[in-house]
């Protein structure tokens, strides 16, 4: 995946010369007038669209479930309708042409300014076919996310962590309780309004 952002044409040891002028990112015209200088790396388009077989299959099979698609540094992220998450996940895992059998990561992100403040991100990977896709759903505060534990058992602890640190409930989770913090802990530290030093920590102030 990294080869999409690194310009493959850079010759070995090309960036070595000490006398080369530092090229600010916006200095495209000087680099164009001096082609022999190998130093100035081509400006990488980070948000370029990439072709993804998983995305094509999703668009074909679940056209109404896809709310948005974004690309960044060769990664494809698909924002899904919350209710279609489970059928989509089951399809992605079981389809013989996709086989996204490995849930690499699952986590929540808090955007308090949005109407639906939480985003749950699923990073999927296929061990046999070596492709990736990122799925996302958006949730309002206290709105439960469908649990994917029945599809990937690894989601169990990840979802408990998202519940613990962000307060996202997961519907259908077999054992939803705090995992990193103590059971009697108040609040969810990764929420943006939670102060970094915590509440009631006056005695820990440095000055």
């Amino acid at each position, binding site marked *: 995946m*990294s080869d999409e952002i690194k310009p493959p044409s850079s010759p070995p*040891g090309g960036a070595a010369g000490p006398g080369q002028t530092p090229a600010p990112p916006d200095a495209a015209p000087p680099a164009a007038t001096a082609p022999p200088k190998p130093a100035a790396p081509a400006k990488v388009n*980070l948000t370029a669209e990439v072709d993804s077989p998983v995305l094509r299959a999703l668009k074909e099979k679940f056209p109404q479930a896809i709310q948005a698609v974004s690309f960044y540094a060769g990664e494809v992220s698909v924002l899904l309708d919350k209710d279609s998450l489970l059928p989509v996940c089951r399809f992605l895992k079981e389809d013989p042409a996709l086989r996204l059998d490995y849930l690499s*990561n699952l986590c929540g992100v*808090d955007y308090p300014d949005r109407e639906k403040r939480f985003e749950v991100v699923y990073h999927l990977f296929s061990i046999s076919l070596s492709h990736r896709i990122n799925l996302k759903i958006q949730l309002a505060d206290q709105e439960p996310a469908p649990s994917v534990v029945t599809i990937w*058992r*690894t989601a169990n602890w990840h979802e408990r962590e998202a519940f613990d640190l962000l307060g996202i409930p997961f519907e259908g989770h077999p054992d939803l309780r705090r995992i*990193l913090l103590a059971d009697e802990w108040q609040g969810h530290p990764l929420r943006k309004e939670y102060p970094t030093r915590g509440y009631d920590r006056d005695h820990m102030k440095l000055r």
Partner: protein
Amino acid sequence: MFRTEMMDINMGPQHPSTHGVLRLKLLLDGETVTDTDVLIGYLHRGVEKLCESKNYHMIEPYTDRLDYVAAMYENLGYVETVEKLMGITVPERAEYIRVITAELQRIASHLVWLGTHALDIGAMTVFFYCFREREILLDLFEAFCGARLTYNAYRIGGLPWDVPPGWTDRVRHFVKIFPGRQQEYDTLLTKNRIWLGRTKGVGILKAGDAIDFGVSGPCLRAAGVSYDVRKAHPYSVYDRFLFDIPTGENCDTYDRYLVRMEEMRQSLRIVQQALDGLPAGEVMGKVPKRIKPPVGEVYHTVEGPRGELGFYIVSQGEDKPYRMRFRSPSFVNLQALPHMVKGSLVADVVAVIGTLDIVLGDVDR
């Protein structure tokens, strides 16, 4: 009247074989484990929350404190993720030195694993042998970056400094002597009857379960799945080196031992090739002083000694990450523990914790 009942046993958090502050609640039927509850979080420091208030340069030392047995990988994964987020190209020499130090770190980390794992099972000698070689590696790291455990060795865009004079010769010396030293561990363990008795058929984790539990690294490869991020998604300059991915067949603790032993040999191969191909030149790329990635998000993984080490950064165009997530292999692999110890003896729980090779700093973050 004679009757039997199940017994709850608490193991840890202050237990030497839990490798830190791991607490297990075991439900025992006689000496057989029927159920396990894994309680973690004793070392939770809220690093993900802290990162949201630090700029990108200030985060790297925090990553050292996650997996402190293999801090080079935390550094490597973090800087590569930021580089990917910004589209920064790293000079060749820096990439090669990163590979050399990272692979040496893998050996150092596996040595800690081997020493402590054998110590848990009762073979004390191996521990001293392993730490003898680890000392050489830590000396090399100290000469390279000034620290022996928490390195902060890389920078976004390259390295803070080149290697000191004579350093590559010292690495070459290590590459030369290490196979002989590894032979000594081999002699002590590989055909040792007690070792075989304690590890063969213990803690079985089959391929299907391992993938389902998200297990990665040597524990997954010992189940016969040839998945290594260095091959599946070559990052840095790993696509230029020849190395094999060792896999096991029996999915047990002994196979995981063999896989890690072979991985050390393969790491040595990579170090040798990187030393031979080490180019001259700068070690720092052209990076703005103030790291301010554009709006976007990336998920980047590297193959740490414990498995797939993932970094997820959401940038809102500020000089601090909006959200930082560490996908630590120890956390995910530990989840398979109840499955692996179900139906085995209490003494085997110790062996299984050892074979999972967890670092609690990495589990709890």
